[in-house]
């Protein structure tokens, strides 16, 4: 079953991390991705552009409106994701606890509901 791991972190704090330290974190993330690949669990991963570049689209009074900025104005912002294909929810949780992003931010794990057309 597939799961989406959304990685949240404080963008402002992230920007303040010195390059050498950041390189170390990235190295951990690559090691994690490779371990996922090796275990046959990996589906996809990507980073996201800063949340300040996001826009939201909604309807107000029957009119489509586009607003600049992210939807939820929280201290942590979504900065990337992994999609994994795990054996079961416990296996997915185990892989989520191994994600280095949980040391500097929050990892949200949610099962992807797969619809198969008839």
């Amino acid at each position: 079953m597939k799961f989406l791991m959304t990685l949240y972190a404080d963008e402002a704090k992230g920007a303040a991390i010195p390059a050498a330290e950041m390189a170390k974190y990235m190295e951990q993330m690559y090691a994690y991705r490779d371990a996922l690949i090796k275990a046959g669990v990996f589906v996809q991963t990507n980073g996201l552009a800063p949340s300040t570049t996001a826009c939201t689209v909604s309807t107000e009074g029957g009119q489509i409106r586009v607003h600049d900025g992210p939807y939820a104005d929280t201290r942590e912002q979504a900065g990337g994701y992994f999609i994994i294909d795990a054996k079961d929810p416990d296996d997915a949780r185990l892989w989520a606890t191994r994600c280095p992003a949980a040391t500097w931010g929050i990892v949200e794990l949610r099962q992807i509901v797969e619809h198969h057309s008839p």
Partner: protein
Amino acid sequence: MTPLPQNSLAQRAAERAARESYGRLVAYLSSRSGDVAAAEDALAEAFVAALRQWPVDGVPERPEAWLHAVAKRRQVDEVRRLVEGNRFTAEMQILADEMLPEIDEMPDRRAALLFACAQDGIEPGIRAPLMLQTVLGFSAAEIAAAFLLPPSTLSQRLVRAKARIKKLGVAFQIPDRSELPERMQAVLDAVYAAYTKGWADADNAAGADLAEEALWLGTVVAGLLPEEPEAKGVLALMLYAEARRAARINGGGDFVPLSEQDVSQWDAQMIHAATKLLIAANRDPGSGRFQIEAAIQSAQISRRLGGAASLDEIVQLYDLLALVAPSPVVMLNRAMAVAQRDGPAAALPLLDEVGRDERMMSYQPYWASRASVCAALDMHELAKAAFRQAIGLASQPAVRTYLQRRLDAINMT
């Protein structure tokens, strides 16, 4: 939980007495019906009152009688509420009297309750939480925090497990001799699984709490099953590990392997207690898995303390362990003992052998061990790849940064 009063020793003594008595009452009340949940309901308020009052007033002389009296009063109130028009009669009092047994003849059925929690139809993962709740009276929220589970998930699983115990309908009893070793193993496995989970999460407070709760449970189990060498063995094993807790993480928050730990940070009292238990366990003929593992820990610790235990002895203990409880993890640890004794070149083919087991592919200690051995043999590329794999599989930040430091050291050569 109630706020800590000034004297936290009194708090802990009271808590311990309350939990002991609680477990006795739950075990007794549910032993015939098999209904653990109903027994807990009857005692819930009494227990809360005890944890509030005992640290302040001191532990009553007969803690069970105290809890019993409060629980009974609550049941009477309950009956009274049920009677229309609040007419409380002598008959009602009698009815209420029957709901809790007479305290003086209450035998200790906690051992039977442990076996009920670890019986066949109960899913292994929920056994230790079930014991912590029913035998020691921990709340679902406390246990959930220690096991890193959402409280609602754990509560549901506990409720389901109790319903299952009731449905299985076996009267709580100590299994007879023919079944005892296997049933005992299930109880001890659950206790040890809880401990190792707490041990793995060494760098957070929840892990320390869980380890402490597991030790407590292990102490109760060893006390309830005084004839069982393995109950002493598992407690000794846990104490040897616990004694080294503070030395496992250095000032910078990094993991420190046994060979580099500052032995002055080890808890000598705990090591002494573990050794006494191990000696007592070894008085019985035959050795079980936990006794052997405790003996290995004892030898490793005594070597670091300048004792006489030889590396040969440690490898032999692993050979024995592989016979009693074969697993790839045992073979991995044996290979590392061989590396210590005969050097890394002797260990590499053993690691290749262990690595044929598919479960090792996602087992972080396997990759960390492999990386260390390759690094010692100057096989840099293999060592780097293995360290990277171990980093990708690490779930504790302290271990991850330790592994990364070792990888960086190779990159710099």
